[in-house]
């Protein structure tokens, strides 16, 4: 995982230079590209951060760049920055997944807000992906009995009801529950219920 970076794509060299200077002074990492093709050519999946792109450029336009990113499954948040703001293009940009739409010239506070927000969105997305990976790893460690207890618990059943359902003693249920919670690193029942809900979506192999 690399440090979050703002990737700036703009055909105007002065705009590129000024924006990267401003953004870096605001404490964010910046990388610039003069066109969408260049960005697509060197992109690596491990890159974190957000994409700040101009709309009208020679070669592929901002909207086209957005479309190609989506096609490749790249979830980097896109912010469209245009000198030609009108409702129709803004709508088109937002519809195809841009997180925000800014008009040139843009106020630095607004810009930094939007960029930080986009980076946060990216981080959350990343963490959610990581968590998901984590949960499924932990679920794999459960035994069949422990998994049954987890599922029934998350359905809201009492220990005695679970014992009756599984034809074991309530005492044994408590043992399974303690072991299961330890394996899942859960401290509260609420966490158990949440993971249980996810486990139901992913049946054991």
């Amino acid at each position: 995982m690399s440090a979050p970076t703002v990737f700036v794509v703009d055909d105007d060299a002065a705009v590129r230079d000024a924006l990267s200077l401003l953004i870096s002074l605001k404490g964010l990492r910046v990388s610039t590209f003069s066109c969408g093709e260049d960005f697509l050519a060197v992109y690596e999946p491990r890159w974190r951060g957000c994409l700040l792109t101009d709309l009208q450029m020679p070669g592929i336009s901002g909207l086209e760049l957005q479309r190609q990113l989506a096609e490749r499954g790249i979830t980097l948040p896109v912010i469209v920055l245009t000198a030609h703001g009108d409702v129709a293009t803004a709508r088109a940009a937002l519809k195809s997944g841009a997180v925000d739409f800014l008009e040139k010239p843009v106020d630095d506070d607004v810009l930094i807000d939007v960029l930080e927000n986009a980076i946060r969105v990216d981080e959350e997305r990343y963490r959610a992906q990581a968590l998901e990976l984590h949960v499924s790893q932990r679920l794999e460690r459960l035994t069949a009995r422990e998994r049954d207890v987890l599922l029934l618990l998350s359905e809201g059943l009492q220990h005695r009801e679970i014992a009756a359902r599984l034809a074991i003693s309530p005492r044994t249920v408590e043992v399974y529950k303690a072991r299961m919670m330890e394996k899942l690193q859960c401290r509260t029942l609420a966490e158990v219920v949440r993971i249980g809900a996810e486990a139901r979506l992913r049946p054991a192999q």
Partner: protein
Amino acid sequence: MTQFTSAAVPAPLLGRWNYRSWAAAAAYIALYVLCDWLSYVQPVLKLGITPWNPQAGLTLIFLLTVGPQWLGCTALASFLAELLVRNASPTSLLVLAASVWIALGYGGLAALLRHWHLDHHHPIRTTAAAAKFAGACVGVTIVIAAGYVVLFVASGVLPPEHALRALPKLLIGDLTGVLTLTPLLVSTRPWGAAPSVWRQHHWQLLGQLAVLILSVWLIFGLPVTLQLRFFYLAFVPVIWISLRWGLPGGLLATLILQVGLIIAVQDETPSPLIDLQFLMLTLSLTALLLGAAVTERAGVLQRVAMREAEQRALLTMSPDGVLAIDAHGRVRMANPAALELFGAGGGLAAATSLREWLPDLTLQEPVGRATLQGRRTDGRNFTADIAWARLDPPANAGFMVTVRDATERLRLQGEARERDAGVARAMRFAVAGELASALAHELNQPITALVSYLRASDILAAPFSRENERLKTTLGKAAHEAMRASEVLRRLRDFYRTGTLKREPVHLPTVCGSVAVAFQDRLRRANASLVTHMGGPLPMPQADAMQLEIVLHNLLANALDAVCHSTKARRRIELHVGGDAEEVFLRIEDCGPGVAPDLAGKLFEPFVTNKPDGMGLGLAISRSFIRASGGELTFEPSGRLGGACFVVRIPTRGPAES
């Protein structure tokens, strides 16, 4: 093959020498001999001279109708007459030669008259034709008579000292016969009307006949010494009848008169014979020329009457007012349309001056046009399109003037001008908008950089601004001003933005029609043609009609410019309009030089043009208009015409709303 040829050769001969001609020839020969016998009064100097020779006229009639190639019959008839009437010797070479000479002479005359179209197909209707006919007859008969006399002198029958005396007598008899009979009988056409004339006017005709007979009786009823003294009386009925009935009547009267004279002089020959001959010739000539003049006049009158009737009908029907103006500027005639235009329902008042109706019109040029105010009799004015022409010299009495109410024309012109002005206004607005938009875009880039640099400077200057507050505020002000400049641009752009888009179902044929009409003059001046194809039933797309008109206007103007730069002989622009339930398209193709490949890619960007005086905004505006309606404007090379092709596509449901 040989059989076929031998059978085929005589065919034209048989066709030409048909039995009707032979029957005519036989009748002619019999009549000739009969006429000779009837008109032969006395032998004069052994030449067979008679006061008049009807057989000469008969001969010319025969040769004119069946053709001069039949002159053999004339020789035969003449020879037979000599034998039978004057008991000439059948072996006389002189008589034979004389007959052949006469036949040749009349054959020649017939050929000449045919050549001049004075035959039975062309009745004499004018004095010019009558004079030509008389002249030809006089000339040829002189030649015939001279040859005849020479023959007789040469053969020793006639003493040379008598030759000059015999010549006129011989000549005048023949001439009288020809002049009286030939024009009378050669044409059957005027006689077609004879039965109806007889039915209507038989009392008059009988009276005229009686006067004719009376005049003959008066001439010859007197003792022989006084005869011919009253011959001039014969002119009275002949002139009367000629004046009344024209050429056929006059010649018929002369014929009757001459037959009467022959009958009258059978018993006692007036002396001298030449007096009678000259009088008869004069009578014939008078009847011929006077009758022709009367016939001609009747024809002229009829034609004039016909033309007048046509003109009257034309004037009555004419939707335009027509005025005849005399030399003093008074309205001599006004047709119904003119009376209606000027509100003179009651008809044309006597001595109406043109000044009352068209006060501003001055008729100085021989031909002219003007648009000016006309004044109705009720005092109201109207705008009139006027055209006038001076009448030609014989009728040099004034002018003909046509008047047309120009109100409707001016109204339509005004509407067209207003439309054009509306389009031009919308176009100017669109140009300004496109300009503002392009300007905003181009300037926003450096302003963005500027603002960002200033903000960066602000951050970079932070350590110093603690000591120098003014640096921080100055940088802040600079950034603020840059933002303000950008704001000005934004407002300018918003002002011209196509926010006032009117969306309604557009009837494409109407839009195309009105643009085509607007281009008519320019196309004509450029000698270019615009061909419009409308395919099938067209759906009505949701769009702004005015904007679409501007787009079409731009594209057509480009096409016209392009074809004007083309060297092709035929400057052609095609507009294809078609569509289906989903979308409509308009394709404008031209035969111009097309678009250079380096230009084609950025054709629709603002300020891109290949015209020296162009702004390069037309296509940019057109594309933004079409896109605002959810459509697309594209360029491709024209395959068929070899120039450029622009395609407008507009969805029928309008832009997708979401």
